[in-house]
């Protein structure tokens, strides 16, 4: 208020407490906003500030400002202020509210911001039922950028980008955001109000206050759409612009309550209290006392280990689990290990493979391009990787007959119908563990205790543990038999 000039009128309502005493946007004219004379934003700002005052929430309030004519809200509102990117205020407000549930978070947006570029953000914030308050100021035009058409521009309305007037054929119809959002389940309160005359303006004030009150009560998403005059862009006098809101705009955007579930809505339950910091490692499963001690140094000193294994097969054959048990057992035995899966479409198209390394020294690359051992659980996998096996290496192949054209003089082969053996054991799906058993016997690196511990860590079902243990033993026996046979 200007106190230094003599007033020739009486002040019925003074400046709201929630406005700054001086607006430091410009060096001069610090008692004025940047809004044009007759602009609806000035009125909407004032009613919002007054509602904040009335509810006594100034300290708790965080105003998220948009891009558009109301971009400078942080110059006027003496509350916590966050300026957001164009259209993104509901996303910003979502996280502010979730981060600070005690704060009262307001997303203040224009129609270009909310109904065009930010249409996804408002839709989903509303659909999640975020406990925020949205003030949506609709003047049917992009004003800040000089009068381009908005999704809310009326049919026939001229703008710089609809010079012949908005045509439904090419620009579609005015977007009714409030009606659209009122089709969602989550919002508790949506009302369209106008600034077309004093009566409408008074109702707008009540609606804004209710929308804030809902949030304070913890009820959920509230939105007030305010039909607002823009005399400058509409090229009208402030009085004519106000009448145009009431006489023309309102025909396209009828005023009224689109949603009111404030009566039945229950306050959202508060989040459970956060655990103490000391509990976090345990919750994350990384606390030392909850991790297996392992069988460290079981291998160290006895021999140098450097196993490079490639495991491949159809999805569902347990390719990745075979590799995981091997890696987990290696870790348990105090070795350095790595496990690298193939992932994505390859996995989903039905084939799968993984790289496993176990070493007594540090592992440089986890990629196994020339494996010392190839575990091929089917023929396509064998054909894909058989040439890559290192001279002197092994192929463990799931099939009674090893394809003759895959045979190599410099690679040893263990080819057995592992799936059939697994079926005899009780479940064909245990073939992976039989093959792992053969691999373990062949390499003779890992102590059985480590393999058992790994299995119990990765397989939770006791029936499967029992079966897998038998499968591992069977695999070991099969290798011994075959090896003796080969040796003989």
């Amino acid at each position, binding site marked *: 208020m200007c106190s230094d000039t003599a007033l020739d009128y009486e002040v019925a309502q003074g400046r709201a407490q929630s406005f700054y005493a001086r607006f430091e946007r410009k060096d001069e004219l610090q008692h004025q906003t940047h809004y044009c004379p007759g602009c609806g934003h000035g009125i909407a700002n004032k009613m919002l500030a007054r509602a904040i005052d009335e509810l006594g929430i100034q*300290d*708790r309030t*965080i105003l998220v400002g948009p891009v558009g004519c109301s971009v400078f809200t942080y110059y006027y509102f*003496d*509350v916590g*202020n*966050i*300026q957001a*990117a164009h259209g*993104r205020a509901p*996303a*910003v*407000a*979502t*996280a*502010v509210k*979730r*981060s*600070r549930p*005690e*704060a*009262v*978070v307001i997303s203040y947006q224009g129609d270009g911001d909310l109904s065009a570029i930010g249409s*996804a*953000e408002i839709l*989903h914030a509303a659909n*999640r039922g975020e406990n925020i308050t949205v003030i949506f100021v609709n003047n049917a035009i992009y004003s800040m950028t000089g009068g381009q058409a908005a999704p809310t521009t009326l049919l026939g309305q001229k703008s710089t980008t609809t010079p012949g007037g908005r045509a439904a054929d090419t620009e579609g119809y005015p977007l009714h955001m409030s009606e659209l959002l009122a089709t969602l389940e989550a919002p508790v309160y949506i009302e369209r109000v106008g600034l077309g005359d004093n009566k409408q303006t008074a109702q707008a004030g009540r609606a804004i206050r209710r929308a804030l009150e809902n949030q304070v009560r913890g009820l959920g998403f509230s939105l007030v759409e305010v039909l607002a005059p823009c005399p400058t862009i509409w090229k009208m006098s402030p009085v004519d612009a106000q009448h145009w809101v009431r006489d023309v705009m309102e025909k396209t955007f009828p005023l009224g309550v689109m949603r009111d579930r404030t009566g039945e809505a229950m306050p959202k339950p508060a989040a*459970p209290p*956060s*655990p103490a*910091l*000391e509990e*976090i*490692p345990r*919750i*994350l*499963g*990384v*606390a*030392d006392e909850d*991790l*297996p*001690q*392992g069988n460290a140094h079981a291998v160290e000193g006895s021999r140098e280990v450097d196993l490079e294994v490639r495991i491949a097969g159809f999805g569902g054959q347990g390719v990745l689990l075979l590799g*995981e048990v091997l890696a*987990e057992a290696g*870790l348990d035995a105090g070795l*350095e*290990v*790595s*496990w*690298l*899966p193939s*992932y*994505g*479409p390859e996995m989903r198209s039905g084939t799968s493979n993984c790289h496993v390394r176990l070493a007594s020294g540090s592992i*440089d*690359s*986890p*990629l196994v391009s020339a494996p010392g051992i190839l575990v091929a659980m089917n023929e396509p996998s064998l054909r894909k990787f058989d040439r890559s096996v290192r001279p002197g290496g092994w192929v463990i192949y799931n099939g009674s007959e090893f394809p003759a054209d895959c045979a190599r003089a410099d690679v040893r082969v263990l080819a057995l119908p592992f799936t059939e053996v697994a079926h005899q054991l009780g479940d064909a799906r245990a073939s992976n563990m039989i093959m792992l058993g053969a691999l373990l016997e062949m390499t003779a690196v890992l102590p059985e205790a480590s393999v058992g511990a790994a299995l119990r860590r990765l397989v939770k079902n006791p029936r499967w543990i029992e079966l897998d243990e038998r499968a591992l033993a069977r695999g070991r026996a099969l290798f011994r038999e075959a090896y003796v046979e080969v040796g003989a």
Partner: protein
Amino acid sequence: MRKQLMKGNEAIVKSAILAGCRGFYGYPITPASEITEAAALYMPRCGGVFVQAESEVAAINMLYGAAAAGVRAMTASSGPGISLMQEGISYMAGAELPCVIADITRGGPGLGNIGSEQSDYHQVVKGGGHGNYRTLVLAPHSVQEMADLTALAFTLAERYRNPVFLLADGFVGQMMEPVEFPQQAVAAPTPGWAVTGSAETRCNVVNSLHMGVDELEAHVGELEKKYRLAEQREARAEEWQTDDAEIVLVGYGIVGRILKAVTAEARAAGIKVGVLRPITLYPFPTAHFRRLALRARLFVVVEMSNGQLVEDVRLALNGARPVEFVSRTGGNVPSHEDLFRYVQALARQLNPGARAEEECLAHV
């Protein structure tokens, strides 16, 4: 501390929570989805917020909100999603908001594929958004580094009030290795500039708008000062057998691992090779390059991209030494066998005398 086997993607989330992160806002994408899934599981249990956003655009703007409210927050995505986030990253850099973004890179451009690539280097290291800003970028090459550098990322984000990237590839994200974590979770105090909805913070404003030309230039100048400081203090690289290296192999992430394997083989064959692995991609470890250039004769950059890191290496060396470039793309990985043969050929070119000697021996 005991080690456990874990995927790199999961290690990021656990380390983030231990480092005080209490907000995760994400959108699923292969090969980064495990990060979002682990956050969905653990964040609420630890008193944090998890929201699956409607898009990466929304996710990064949620991060903007969480950071503005003074909460340590992160997101994770891959190439196409990072492209969508660039708007919000620019706003966060402009508004000086800290956050951590993990990019588990896949193949591009466009929909590309979900194979492992390093083709996001330009959009992450150079900044893909508008305006005068930088992001700090850390490039882990193991699951342990996924954990350790995530914790560092939060420290740097807060220290410089700026977004910090973890730039990894699908391999580092998807592979399992033994990893250990600190046994004490960090308490993250609310920064004084945050807007928390309290009387003390009522005067705070989070904003990237500076209307006056001089005002904006001053702001950009302040940001630049931070970046210069980060360049002086935060550059990191690992040097591997570089002391007497004639050929320095350069690569980050999974490529760094492969280059170590190549080095082992090359050293066994008597070739003086070493690895320089940038750990920070911005700030770029220029000093390491200049120092190694005093002795090394040749640098070889290996990338799973069409040549992005190599530009920074050339800038760092500024013509002091020749730079060769080896590229695989599309999800292909340079095998260490191929690279070894390539290095052998380079070594023969560098030392023709040694080659003659070798041939003489072969003819004996």
